[in-house]
């Protein structure tokens, strides 16, 4: 536990500061998102001491959660998906002249939720890691499968399209050396492809390059931000009093949702808003500019970001694109997350967790006085920013393996990402399929080998059986419910 103070060493404090500032800027700027930004700084991370590098990456992740609320409230443009709900009441509050109060409550809610989730993460991650020591290949296979199925089910939009993108991601993960026998597959004799498709290059392309292409197609879309005066920053007593219950509800709810595989921060914010619409004493005001509509979702999405770290740190399984990049960063600095992380790298484990405390304080201090500055960043026209993002994408892709082939992969992923946007496919399931593909293959092969070819070996342990049953249930339940609704007398037929 004394390793918690590793976060307070000067290099780690600087890394944390740089991370949360970058994260806040990324959250403010619509489009790139935390995963893309984290991928772009990986060349910097590998040059730092491992703990400092990972603290910087984590800072970007939760800094973006903070920053995303700023443009939602001031410009009605969510910086990332988890802040979409905040626009509903936040922007209406801003139009009523309460932008400052909404921003301050969002920052406070994020701080409270972030701090709570750190405490809960500190307690939960070692427990989960200890339980995970009993996990064998069959359990890992079942958990990874459950994760991708839940992601596709909960992500919103057409489930079949999300599942197809998971499959495409897993398909792409089979390019290069087979993880068990070392056979080179699907490389078409391209030497640079033998190590597989670089995850960093694919992420930079899908998020960064595709965003630039989309902005090029859409034309210049700079927006005007509302001005916030410093004296307007403080919520009044009534607004503070009304914010506390939704903030606490959103915090607990968000952390629990964060533990579930899937786009947890986004789901948590929507669930929190739904809960407030049912239980809040001011539920009728929601949608017209109620402070509860800011406090609850903002607390929930920040707590979920903390909750999402539990499966990553304790099992080595990322279930969001951002935690997948964090996993990639860990592997780049030779730190393997999972049950043995706490034993093998306690300073990294506790240092990163300790940095969450420090980072939350930094974010609160930054967000309250500098909110107007961050809001103005959102008004910089993309034509000045985005050409530089292309160069950063290329550097990130190349520097991953010093391999020119990865720049081609980045360009290809960018074109694919742009086409996917046009066709209505979410890139997040593809990224997770790419990350979890090797784990799925390795654990499937190992589980079947241990079971001497008996397929029932995949569900012979209670844990694996429960997780596989949950995956099947998540897969078939929506279809069964739809059929049941159609079969009901008087139900409309399609």
């Amino acid at each position, binding site marked *: 536990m004394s390793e918690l103070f590793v976060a307070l060493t000067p290099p780690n404090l600087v890394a944390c500061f740089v991370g949360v500032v970058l994260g806040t800027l990324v959250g403010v700027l619509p489009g790139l998102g935390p995963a893309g930004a984290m991928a772009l700084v990986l060349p910097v991370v590998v040059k730092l001491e491992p703990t400092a590098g990972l603290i910087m990456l984590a800072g970007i992740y939760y800094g973006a959660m903070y920053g995303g609320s700023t443009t939602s409230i001031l410009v009605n443009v969510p910086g990332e998906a988890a802040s979409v709900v905040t626009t509903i009441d936040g922007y209406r509050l801003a139009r009523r002249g309460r932008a400052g109060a909404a921003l301050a409550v969002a920052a406070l809610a994020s701080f409270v939720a972030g701090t709570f989730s750190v405490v809960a993460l500190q307690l939960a991650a070692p427990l989960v890691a200890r339980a995970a020591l009993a996990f064998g290949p069959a359990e890992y296979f079942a958990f990874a499968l459950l994760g991708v199925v839940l992601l596709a089910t909960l992500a919103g939009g057409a489930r079949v399209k999300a599942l197809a993108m998971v499959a495409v991601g897993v398909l792409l993960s089979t390019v290069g050396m087979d993880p068990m026998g070392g056979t080179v597959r699907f490389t078409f004799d391209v030497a640079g492809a033998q190590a597989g498709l670089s995850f960093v290059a694919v992420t930079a392309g899908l998020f960064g390059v595709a965003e630039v292409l989309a902005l090029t*197609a859409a034309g210049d879309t700079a927006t005007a931000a509302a001005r916030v005066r410093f004296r307007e920053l403080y919520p009044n007593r009534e607004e503070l009093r009304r914010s506390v219950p939704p903030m606490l509800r959103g915090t607990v709810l968000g952390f629990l949702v964060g533990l579930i595989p899937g786009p947890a921060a986004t789901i948590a914010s929507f669930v929190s808003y739904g809960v407030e619409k049912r239980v809040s004493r001011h539920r009728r005001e929601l949608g017209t500019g109620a402070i509860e509509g800011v406090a609850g979702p903002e607390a929930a999405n920040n707590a979920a970001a903390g909750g999402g770290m539990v499966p990553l740190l304790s099992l080595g399984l990322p279930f969001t694109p951002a935690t997948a990049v964090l996993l990639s960063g860990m592997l780049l600095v030779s730190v393997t997350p999972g049950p043995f992380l706490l034993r093998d790298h306690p300073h990294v484990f506790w240092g990163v967790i300790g940095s969450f405390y420090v980072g939350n304080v930094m974010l609160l201090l930054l967000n309250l006085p500098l909110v107007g500055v961050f809001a103005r960043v959102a008004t910089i026209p993309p034509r000045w920013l*985005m*050409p530089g993002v292309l160069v950063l994408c290329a550097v990130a892709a*190349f520097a991953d393996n010093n391999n020119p082939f990865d720049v081609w992969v980045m360009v290809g992923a960018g074109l694919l990402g742009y086409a996917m946007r046009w066709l209505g496919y979410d890139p997040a399931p593809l990224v997770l399929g790419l990350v979890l593909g090797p784990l799925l293959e390795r654990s499937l092969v190992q589980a079947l*080998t241990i079971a001497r070819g008996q397929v029932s070996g995949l569900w012979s342990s209670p844990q694996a059986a429960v997780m596989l049953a949950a995956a099947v249930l998540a897969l078939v339940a929506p279809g069964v419910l739809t059929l049941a609704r159609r079969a009901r007398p008087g139900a409309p037929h399609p």
Partner: protein
Amino acid sequence: MTRRDRWSAVGLALVATAYLVLGRAYPLDTLAALGPGAFPLAVGLVLLALAVWQFSAAGRAAPSGPSIAPPRSRAALVMACVLVVYAAVLPRLGFLLASSALVFVAARLMGLDGWWRPAALAVGVAVAARVLFVTWLGVPLP
């Protein structure tokens, strides 16, 4: 689901079929010792099944209206070609020159008017990136 989803389902089915055909080059071996072709076979079949599911679901959807192309889709197409050229010339021209050209053309395509402003941005971004990544961090860029 829209009719556009139907065409993308056909695309996914073609990808899955091509992948399955290419995957035949790798042995399947036995269930107790799966060969390098077994997992790709399973993934290809799953993708094919999902493509069929998506095709049938989109077939039940009402016909969508005419597709609305983004206002400047030609500019995006040119940008895509520029990126392909960038990937091709990066190892030959080197990072500084290739990236300066990329930023210049990208800024122009995104609507940055005139010549000196895109040029200044191009030189600024490329030099700053080179100083940060090559000089300070020692990243061996081409």
